[in-house]
């Protein structure tokens, strides 16, 4: 990382409650911003860098259902993020494969 201010590294905004409307997200609130994951591997810092989170680290959003409970993660309030000294975070995707997968919620 070269010439990156700590406050400028990342900022994850919260899901906008107004997205939960028929035109955008329907009844289901769009929680995409809560499930964003940035992974940094083999990170190198330039001389004098104001940042140093180690070689491998991950950035996740301020997901109140998960982030505060991860031992490896520390909050960075200015970015509304958590910085995690970990590389095991990931994205799990699950979906219905039933015939009515587009017709009903679960």
């Amino acid at each position, binding site marked *: 990382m070269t010439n990156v201010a700590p406050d400028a590294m990342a900022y994850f905004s919260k899901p906008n409650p107004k997205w939960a409307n*028929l035109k955008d997200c*329907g*009844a*289901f609130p769009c929680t*995409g911003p*809560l*499930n*964003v*994951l940035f*992974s940094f*591997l083999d990170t190198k810092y330039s001389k004098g860098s104001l940042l140093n989170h180690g070689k491998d680290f991950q950035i*996740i*959003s301020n*997901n109140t259902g*998960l982030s505060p409970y*991860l031992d490896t993660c520390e909050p960075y309030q200015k970015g509304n993020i958590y910085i995690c000294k*970990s*590389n*095991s*975070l*990931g*994205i*799990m*995707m*699950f*979906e*219905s*494969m*039933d015939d009515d*997968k*587009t*017709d*009903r*919620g*679960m």
Partner: protein
Amino acid sequence: MDNTWDGFYAGQIRLSRFPALIDGNGGAYNISFTGSPAKKMRFLFNSLNKTAGMTIRIAYPGAESRSITINDKVIEPNPWNDESQMYGPIMQTHCGENRYIGVKNILEFYLVNGCEIIIIPRDAIQSLVRMEWSLDAFFSNGGTTSFMDRVAAGLGIHASTIKIVSVYEGSLVVNYEIGASDPVALAQVQ
């Protein structure tokens, strides 16, 4: 899911597909559904850590058991554990390792990085009955064969669809499974 109706037709249809941020540090996660869980479901986990993985637990509202498949192959559940008197716990040895806890109707499986798992319904019911009887009396009165015959007669099904999983004292507990009729096997015994 659909979010709007235009007369007879559903509108704004979208897939029931959900991404979730999760830590593959070898822990266990419970997934709860606010609606009826889908019968067939796909699970995929992606992480930069090749060894990342976690146990997933899903509590189902019904007694119908489930199977785990990878590349269309059914992954057999863990062997029965006499000590815990249920299928063996998830030891996180391989992707798809699983067990279905009958009666409580909980499916547990191990999901690792890059592994795609599909849960399919299994046409079987796992059940348990506790009887005020000793083990000796049970076996001297016909044992598992008589038990299967009586359950089959009571339910009006063929005895070949019943499989005894275990019998143990306490007073007397029988774990059994009722599966779908296999027409070929049924023809052979009839």
